[in-house]
């Protein structure tokens, strides 16, 4: 009798969890339905391709941020790190004295490495002494931006090898190749978070750091790892940016961190850590992209778009607050 109660209680909890996970997806579908009814241009292949192109960079940054936010931190520096990675990679790529066949892979390596190093610095400084990552990464936001501007003398870098820019323009059955890269990144992140010890510890630390420490695990190492992943994603986003636009600008990515954080939060990841998923982040990034695109199709100004995006962020957090209160009360 009592075990039956436990089981049905658990089933209800699982049902609720499923609904919670589906919630963002349903919101995205409803949004797309609304726009396709109100604008004839929305559901065209050209427009959908356009949306996917536009969300690719935000999605890439948001995947990395999901790790940091899950572990209970925040990374404000991803936009600036994107710029620094881009200009350093761009300098390698546009350097005429390196064989073009070597320059591209080398530049890709440099771009990812710069992101990784910046992320590890963020992680090491905040995790080692338990400093608030908000402040550390705010510092990195300024440092990386300043460094990118100083190195390039505030000038954008052009003239990459043709093959590299070509990759940015490939579209397969209406899906940009760069978006496919981002989608692969989402799948890898999903695998890491749900199937590895590293992922498990990210969630565990986000929920109860002290319990993890007393269980004999190095909280520092996993936090460092989460920030490193975030930096690496910023480096990858820098390469996507370069492939798409054909330039590496030191003022690239200004305020990109805000849309990326918004995507993570709308996707249902708790800002206090320990709860959420990268699949939610995928939907979150889609919602932001669809919203921006749809509202412009409806003829609303970009200012109104900003207001509505802001309202959606607030609504997502308020909804999440009441959902978790209800599930705790049950």
């Amino acid at each position, binding site marked *: 009798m009592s*075990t039956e109660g436990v089981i049905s209680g*658990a089933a209800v909890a699982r049902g609720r969890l499923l609904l919670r996970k589906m919630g963002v997806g349903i919101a995205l579908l409803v949004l797309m339905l609304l726009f396709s009814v109100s604008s004839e241009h929305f559901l065209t292949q050209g427009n959908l391709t356009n949306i996917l192109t536009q969300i690719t960079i935000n999605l890439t940054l948001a995947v990395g941020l999901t790790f940091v936010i899950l572990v209970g931190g925040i990374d404000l520096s991803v936009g600036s790190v994107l710029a620094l990675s881009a200009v350093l990679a761009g300098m390698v790529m546009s350097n005429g004295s390196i064989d073009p066949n070597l320059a591209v892979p080398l530049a890709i390596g440099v771009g990812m490495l710069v992101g990784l190093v910046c992320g590890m610095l963020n992680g090491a400084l905040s995790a080692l002494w338990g400093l608030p990552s908000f402040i550390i990464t705010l510092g990195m936001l300024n440092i990386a931006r300043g460094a990118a501007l100083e190195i390039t003398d505030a000038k954008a870098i052009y003239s990459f090898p043709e093959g590299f820019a070509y990759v940015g323009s490939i579209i397969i059955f209406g899906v940009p190749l760069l978006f496919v890269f981002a989608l692969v990144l989402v799948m890898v992140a999903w695998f890491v978070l749900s199937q590895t*010890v590293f992922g*498990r510890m990210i969630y565990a630390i986000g929920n109860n750091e002290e319990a993890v420490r*007393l*269980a004999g695990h190095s909280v520092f190492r996993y936090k460092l790892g989460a920030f490193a992943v975030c930096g690496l994603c910023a480096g990858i986003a820098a390469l996507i940016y370069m492939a798409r636009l054909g330039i590496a600008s030191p003022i690239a990515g200004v305020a990109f961190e805000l849309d990326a954080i918004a995507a993570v939060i709308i996707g249902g990841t708790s800002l206090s850590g320990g709860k959420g998923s990268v699949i939610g982040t995928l939907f979150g990034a889609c919602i932001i992209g669809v919203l921006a695109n749809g509202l412009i199709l409806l003829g609303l100004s970009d200012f109104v778009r900003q207001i509505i995006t802001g309202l959606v962020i607030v609504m997502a957090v308020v909804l999440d607050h009441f959902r978790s209160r209800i599930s705790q009360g049950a």
Partner: protein
Amino acid sequence: MSLLAPQTQPHIAGHAQVLNVSDLRKSFGGIRALGGVSLNVEAGKIHALVGENGAGKSTLIKILTGAITRDSGTILLHGKPYLPSNPAQAKAAGVQCVYQELNMFPDLSIAENVNIERFPRKPFGLVDFAAMRAQAIRALGAVGLDDMDPDLPVRKLGIAHKQLIEIARALSTKSEILILDEPTATLTDREVQKLAEILARLRLQGLSILFVSHHLEEVFRICDQVTVFRNGQTVASEAIANVTPELVVRHMVGRALHPAAAAPRPKAPRKNEVLAVADLKTTAHAKPSGVSFSLKAGEVLGLAGLVGAGRTEVLRALFGADRRRGGTIRIDGAEVRIDSPSDAIRHGLAFVTEDRKGEGLILPMSIKENLGLVDFVSASRMGLLNKAAESTQADRSRDKLSIKLGSTSDAVSSLSGGNQQKVVMGKWLNVRPRILLLDEPTRGVDVGAKAEIYEILKGLAEEGTSILVVSSELPELMTLCDRIMVLSNHQLSGELNRDAFSEEALLKLAYRQHQEVGVETT
């Protein structure tokens, strides 16, 4: 605002009752905290409330200060019904309380701390600093700190002065009765003497004080009357002149002492020494004197003492959870370095902490994930989780510890307290520890699960696991242990073998330090 009508009849100091509690009851989800306590505090008297851990003292304070509400019973304040539903109402009615954990603002000045509840104001919401200072100087005078600079930040003060300022703050608003919760726990003997003098002066001014304490020596030095709680009931209420400390201890423990050898342990502990700790100094005490002990294979050693005696600190320091000031740890005769929990685990230690929810479990995660929290090795390969192995491991733990659950995939928060505790034990037993440290292993656990946990621990000891257990429940220690050490004020005050166990003997050791200090100074 006030719960009391304005006072109409003047009360005569020494006779009128300020606070009258009768047949007060309070339960928390089936666990009875107060089972009908009564207490009368007379005007202008210092009334002591004593009792063992869990006797119901804190619950009474919480009801009086409006932090929680009672189930039934009456409380009269100056003869009028008194039922605060929140702390603000209690304060407005004149019930002021100074807690053991001081709630101060270290970077604000003394004057600001004293006035924090109600800043004197000028028009437009500006603070009237002159009035605030004047009020602070008056309040400081009332607690004998006439020469204290009210502009000093509280951070710069010693603990004793902080406490006096808390009292000053409490008295700066309308005060019918002042409740002091363990006021002397962190004071030196000279500071206690000073506090006693100030309390005596406040009493002469007609203030009534409820003095809640563990420290009998101070109760006898400071108070006029004493009420003893035991298991949520009033067992005695006497004038101090009519009782002795021994009698009070007897009341606290109860006449029907628990028989020591409730269940004789079948096997004598083995001979070889597994753990030897020498001169372990924790950071919790400014001048620790060092704790030394040893533990044999299959032995169950208890660590008794009052709250604040440093029991948890010893376990945490030994496990590497906190830094140590000094001390050596030997395992199987060889000295080992334990600087972190992972060092401790590598040397075969495990630590079931007191705070199950804060330190033991990851509540939103599943039962099997929690059971696998310490031991990833057997449920993962090359950094990948092996979820099948994890489930098998969880099922083994469930069967071995008879954890009552629906599915091991359910959130651990869905379990009862006893089963949650078994999950905490299970995650440690997965790494087969040789030395198991337990802090309050049956806190918040129902009677049935308690007995099961005792059985599990006995089984482990028979298999050769050495166990060091801290508990505030003396019967629990007397049931489980082969030997009990007693800590008093961060020092070992004695040790008893199983044949010498009695609650009286243990309590005497637990109180010993304080009484010796008292004798020295009087």
